[in-house]
């Protein structure tokens, strides 16, 4: 048995050897070769690991810190090998710190070579959020190219630094102080009509809402001529440089037919509330009086006028400090006289709401005489060149019908109310997740950088370049505005929807506060909310009036409404003079004093006068030395100069003592966000200062006392 086995194996061996010999002549050489190949193959694996980019960076880093004074600490912090932040809830597995070894090393602030820079200070912890949530890129990759530049199907490259604020916007749907580009971009989306065509849904289910206020064109024939419409449609900027209507680069034929349709379709203004036309004036227009009225009425706060040097003057209410809270500016008036019909202008100035029930323009209470002066003053802004070359033949039925078809095609009714044209739904693609749109779904223009940010930016700046027949019109955005809009769009990501809802900070709900009764109606007519905020609704350019009834004395409020003036010496702008009647003022002051009261301030708990001279003197000391209030306020116009806060010369006739007392102790509790610093004032100091301030009465009030 054993012999048989031996014989078989021996003969096998002999056969194999002869086979081998037949193949190669000498057995040693190929054997050596094969083992060598095997060895090299095996060595590749550790060598590849050893020579990998990230190991090289880690060795570089160790060399870099070796000679520094704090090398011991730095070396102790250093962890070799692949480092990973793993946050399953956020779908983050980031290995960036494998190469970016010094992100948290404040003492390496002077190192400027990547990947060893420290991270600038941000309000979040790296180990709670990882890297890719903000920077995008491939967190799990371990080579530079894959981590930073990969554009494979579901993957995305790093977000360019200038759009980085977009990442904050994935969770923060309210404006943050440190993200001006994102805030501006969102504001532009809402103000420039983008949201009228494109829906944007947020992760909490709410929708972004437009805040612009496009004109209805239902009664347009009452307001302007077909010639003006024709010129405007072709080049809106030819009429108003600051126009926010996009340029459709409309052909002469289209403009001819649309203007024909709009005029033919216009409904005459009717109704009992229509203002009665004024009798024509006999005398020549009084330009000086016009200028005075224009100024007193603060028209320039909302309306810009181009001056002789072609600079825009006025209309700057929306420019500071937080544009998103400022009112929408009114239309530019540089060439208004070449646009509107005189009788329309007069009736508009008498009561704007009979023409447009949603307008933001206040209804001034001008006398017929004042109306004539103001409208003549405004009407004198003309441009004889504007329509000099427009000569239109009477419209044909065919042009009118074609105009209607064009109005539907251009989507005019998305923004404007037009009789008989329904508002189109979903006119343009929804943008709720546009910040994660895969490259494969984008059509690039040749020569363009193939990235999502470049695509969005290009589309915003030159939509027509992406192909004829696309419906998006040409806007006039500066390159900063286009960057801001791109930032806002890039914040609308899939990830934003996937992140846990505990991280989402929802946008502030649009406040819908509406004052009641007759006073509420008056406040709507005067559009107080354009500048003032009450109970969370309204603008930021004038004081918050939520607690105005606790703050001011009734007699002062009545006098102020009658003749508004600037409380802040350094402010040029002031509240417009509305010419309210006595009963209207009584209505408003009554409402303010009873309704806008802060419950914990008892107006009657402190007297308006009669404080002891000693207390007043103690207050004076505190005012000028300990608290140095004169750095921002003046009490004595001869001596004090501070011009940041309101002048306090008459404050004892203006404010209630209890309000001053509360204010001094915690101003932000009464008006959140006020810049008056909270001085942690003691009760004793506050009452002495209150006594001193209440002693500052206007001479009129002092005389009345005697």
């Amino acid at each position, binding site marked *: 048995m054993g012999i048989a086995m031996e014989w078989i194996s021996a003969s096998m061996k002999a056969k194999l050897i002869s086979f081998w010999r037949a193949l190669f002549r000498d057995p040693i050489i190929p054997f050596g070769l094969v083992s060598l190949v095997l060895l090299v193959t095996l060595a590749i694996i550790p060598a590849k690991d050893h020579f990998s980019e990230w190991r090289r960076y880690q060795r570089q880093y160790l060399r870099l810190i070796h000679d520094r004074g704090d090398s011991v600490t730095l070396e102790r912090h250093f962890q070799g090998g692949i480092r990973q932040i793993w946050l399953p809830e956020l779908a983050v597995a980031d290995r960036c710190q494998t190469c970016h070894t010094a992100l948290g090393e404040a003492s390496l602030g002077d190192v400027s070579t990547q990947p060893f820079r420290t991270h600038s200070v941000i309000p979040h912890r790296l180990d709670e959020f990882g890297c890719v949530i903000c920077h995008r890129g491939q967190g799990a990759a371990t080579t530079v190219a894959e981590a930073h530049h990969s554009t494979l199907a579901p993957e995305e490259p790093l977000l360019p630094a*200038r759009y980085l604020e977009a990442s904050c916007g994935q969770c923060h749907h309210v404006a943050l102080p*440190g993200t001006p580009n994102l805030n501006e971009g969102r504001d532009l989306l809402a103000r420039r009509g983008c949201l009228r065509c494109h829906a944007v849904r947020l992760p909490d289910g709410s929708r972004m809402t437009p805040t612009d206020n496009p004109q209805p064109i239902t009664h347009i024939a009452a307001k302007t001529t077909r010639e003006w419409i024709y010129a405007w449609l072709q080049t809106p900027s030819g009429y108003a440089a600051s126009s926010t209507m996009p340029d459709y680069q409309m052909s002469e034929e289209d403009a001819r037919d649309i203007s024909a349709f709009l005029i033919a379709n216009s409904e005459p203004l009717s109704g009992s509330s229509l203002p009665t036309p004024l009798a024509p004036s006999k005398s020549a227009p009084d330009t000086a009086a016009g200028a005075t009225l224009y100024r007193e009425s603060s028209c320039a706060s909302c309306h810009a006028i181009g001056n002789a040097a072609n600079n825009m003057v006025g209309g*700057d209410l929306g*420019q*500071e400090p937080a544009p998103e809270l400022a009112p929408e500016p009114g239309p530019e008036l540089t060439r208004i006289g070449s646009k509107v019909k005189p009788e329309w202008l007069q009736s508009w100035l008498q009561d704007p709401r009979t023409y447009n029930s949603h307008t933001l323009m206040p209804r001034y209470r001008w006398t017929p005489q004042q109306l004539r002066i103001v409208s003549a003053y405004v009407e004198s802004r003309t441009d004889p060149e504007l329509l000099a070359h427009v000569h239109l033949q009477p419209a044909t039925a065919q042009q009118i019908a074609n105009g209607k078809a064009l109005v539907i095609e251009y989507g005019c009714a998305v923004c404007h109310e037009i009789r008989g044209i329904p508002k189109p739904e979903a006119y343009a693609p929804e943008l709720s997740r546009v910040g994660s749109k895969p490259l494969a779904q984008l059509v690039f223009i040749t020569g363009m950088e193939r990235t999502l940010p470049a695509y969005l930016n290009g589309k915003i700046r030159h939509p027509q370049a992406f192909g004829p027949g696309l419906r998006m019109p040409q806007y006039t955005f500066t390159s900063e505005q286009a960057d801001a809009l791109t930032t806002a769009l890039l914040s609308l990501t899939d990830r934003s929807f996937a992140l846990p809802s505990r991280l989402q900070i929802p946008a502030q709900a649009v406040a819908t506060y509406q004052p009641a009764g007759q006073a509420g109606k008056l406040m709507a007519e005067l559009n107080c909310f354009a500048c003032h905020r009450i109970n969370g609704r309204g603008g930021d350019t004038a004081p918050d009036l939520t607690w105005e009834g606790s703050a001011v004395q009734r007699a002062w409020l009545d006098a102020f409404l009658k003749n508004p003036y600037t409380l802040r010496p350094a402010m040029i702008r002031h509240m417009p003079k509305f010419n309210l009647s006595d009963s209207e003022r009584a209505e408003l002051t009554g409402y303010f004093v009873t309704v806008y009261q802060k419950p914990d301030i008892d107006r009657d708990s402190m007297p308006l006068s009669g404080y002891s001279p000693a207390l007043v003197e103690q207050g004076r000391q505190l005012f000028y*030395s300990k608290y140095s209030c004169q*750095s921002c306020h003046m009490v004595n116009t001869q001596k004090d100069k501070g011009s940041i806060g309101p002048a306090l010369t008459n404050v004892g006739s203006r404010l209630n003592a209890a309000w001053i007392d509360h204010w001094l102790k915690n101003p932000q509790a009464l008006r959140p966000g006020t810049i008056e610093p909270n001085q942690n004032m003691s009760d004793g100091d506050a009452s002495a200062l209150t006594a001193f301030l209440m002693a500052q009465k206007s001479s009129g009030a002092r005389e009345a006392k005697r």
Partner: protein
Amino acid sequence: MKRLLLILGTLTLTAGCATGCAHQTALAPVLQATATGSTIVESSGGKQLGTPGAMLQQPLVVQVNDAQGNAVTGALVEFRAAEHVTFDPAASLTDSSGQVSTTVTLGGTSGRYELTAASTDKSGKQFDLNITELALGYQTQLGYELDQKYCARCHDQVSTPQRVSNYDNLAVKPPAFTDGDTLNKRSDSDLTAIISHGGPALNRSALMPPYGATLGKPDIQALIAYIRLVSSPPSRIAGLVYARR
């Protein structure tokens, strides 16, 4: 077989050379200086506050002068900076008023950027001008916003129509936040003290109000980071400095 390989190799080589050369000429348009000056001065566009990775709002304009201080036309100016900063154009000849204008795009990180504009005089020696630009990160941006809201009206002498300066009205003059000679001497803890508790905290005027009960700790840190960033001469603790290479 061998011949085929040889032909293929030669072809690849020539093709490579050709594209390489074509590339070279495309990259370096030859700019020849037609004149030389002896100094460069900044006309405008330095010390801007920008966004990392974005173009600065204003172009950077420098002027080349000769020894008598007259503007020189046709001098070659080259702009240089650390990597990631780009200039458009990176080199150019001065125009008829002796000026060169370039748009600057900063690198992707916040901090201080040191740029150089260089030219050569008639002996071929280089002379240059250093320019600083600043990129605001999250924290320094916050500091900037807070400065604009709370501090600038006293600490900045410049008035705008929207914001009239209160500087002239103050009996004790506050230092501008760019005043490195004064503020670099203050430690972070001194700055925190005076901002939180007002001037009297450091035996200074009470015209400097306390903000400790109005602003939070991160706000005050942001203000200090911003003050350190904008100071000139630069603060040692200014954080990142991207030195020119």
